Each structure stands twice: as structure tokens, then as C-alpha cells.
């Protein structure tokens, strides 16, 4: 476990206390830990897949579905084996 001192507004601290009083969490620490756990993965996913990237991905997949061809192309004289092997050296 790591100890992280955090500053909360009185309002937020009151909300935490309410969750504890309602018996949803045993302590403020447990409440914060649980909310970080629940939110962190969700926020990372949202950050990585924004609206624009999802729209572009959809277009790429649509093209592939219609044309049966890969819409992305690597411009290189090397083979895929060579390209991948470069990163494995």
C-alpha cells in the first residue's frame, strides 16, 4: 500500500462521509480506493478511444467491408518479417 495525502473540498469530504454513514463503504479510504479502481480503467479507455479515432476506425472498417481490401498500406521496400524483426534485434 502507498500513502497519498490528498486535499479535498469540504463538500467532497462530506459526500465521502455520507457514503460511509450509509454503510456503502467502511471508511473514506475504502471509498476513495473503490472509486479510483472503478474510474481509472474507464478513463484510460475513454482517453485512448476518442470520438475522432472511433469515427476513422469505423470508416476503415466500412471500406474493408465494402471493397474487401485493406484501406491501410505500409509503404516500404522491406518485408513484414524484416520490419518486425528490426524491433526484435
Amino acid at each position: 500500500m502507498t500513502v497519498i495525502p490528498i486535499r479535498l473540498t469540504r463538500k467532497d469530504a462530506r459526500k465521502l462521509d455520507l457514503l460511509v454513514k450509509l454503510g456503502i463503504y467502511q471508511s473514506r479510504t475504502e471509498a476513495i480506493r473503490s472509486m479510483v479502481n472503478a474510474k481509472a480503467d474507464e478513463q484510460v479507455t475513454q482517453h485512448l478511444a476518442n470520438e475522432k479515432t472511433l469515427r476513422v476506425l469505423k470508416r476503415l472498417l466500412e471500406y474493408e467491408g465494402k471493397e474487401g481490401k485493406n484501406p491501410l498500406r505500409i509503404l516500404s521496400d522491406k518485408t513484414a518479417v524484416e520490419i518486425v524483426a528490426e524491433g526484435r534485434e
Partner: protein
Amino acid sequence: MACYLDTNVIVTRYLPADPNFPAVNTFFKKSHEAKYGSEISVLELYCVFSRLIKGGAVSVVDYASEFESLNVDEKVRVSVEHAIQTWRLRVTVPEISFTKLQISKQAIQMDHRLFEAIRVSSKLGLKTLDTLHIAFASTLREIAIDLETFITLDAEIISKREDIESEFGIQVASPAPEA
């Protein structure tokens, strides 16, 4: 029967000039078996596409020209997502256990998949990532019991197919006739 795809097979679909492209494209279109990858595959796809996109070596058809307006991070993310989705790659992680490796007076708790890679490293004599892919593929069989084949285009890995099969019980095959 299911298979594990080496990254070079996945990437070949993006290189029409690659001599292995026709065979890989046929394999892509005709093979309906389940295809697996690992966290290593995802990491490697990120690294490969990052290098190519930073070098300006990825182009896109007009229909999806908005791709060009994305920043490098976004382009890489979209390319990796495209590769995983179109190949229908199942990236599955088995329950991880740890094996103690006693070395230099230290007891190192190793992820069992890394331990497997270390165990066979001297026999196979392959590169680190080659060995990791094979070890990860073989341990995936705990949860994907029909996974029988490691599909690669890498001649060095193919040359070790007998040792890989005897150590891991996984067959090595190529989608190309003479890779």
C-alpha cells in the same frame, strides 16, 4: 484448430508488395479458425506502427482520409485496433502464476510465461521476443485448448520447429509455401 499469429503475419496484410502477401491474404480470407495473440502481440503492433507512422510510411485510401488529420498517437491506436479487429485476434491472458528463479543469491518471482521462455532459451537460441511469443502461445493453451499451431513467416523460428514442438507441444507453420 486455433492458432497463434506471429506479428509478421498480421503486418503482412498491410504490405501488398511483400512476396508473402498473396499467401497471407488467402490465409486471411479463407481461414476461419480462431486466431490468438498475447499482450506481446499488442505491444509489438504498437511499436511497429509507431515506427512506420513516425517515418511517414503508412498511407490510407481517400475514403478514410480523416486518418491523416489524427496525431501520431491516434494513428497508431487506430492502426493497431484495425489490425486486431480485422484479423479477429483474440488477445487472451491466462491466470498468471509466479515461479521462483534463484539467481545470484536472489529469489526472483517470475511470471510463469517468462519462466517458460527462460527455460527453453538455451535450447532454442532465438531472439527474446521470438521466444516470448512462443512461450506465451504455449501457455495460452491452458485456456484455449484447441490452440495447436504457431503461425509465423520468420525463417529462423520455422527452422526450430522440431525443438519448439518437442519443448512446448505446439506446431509451427507458415501461411506461405516456402517461407
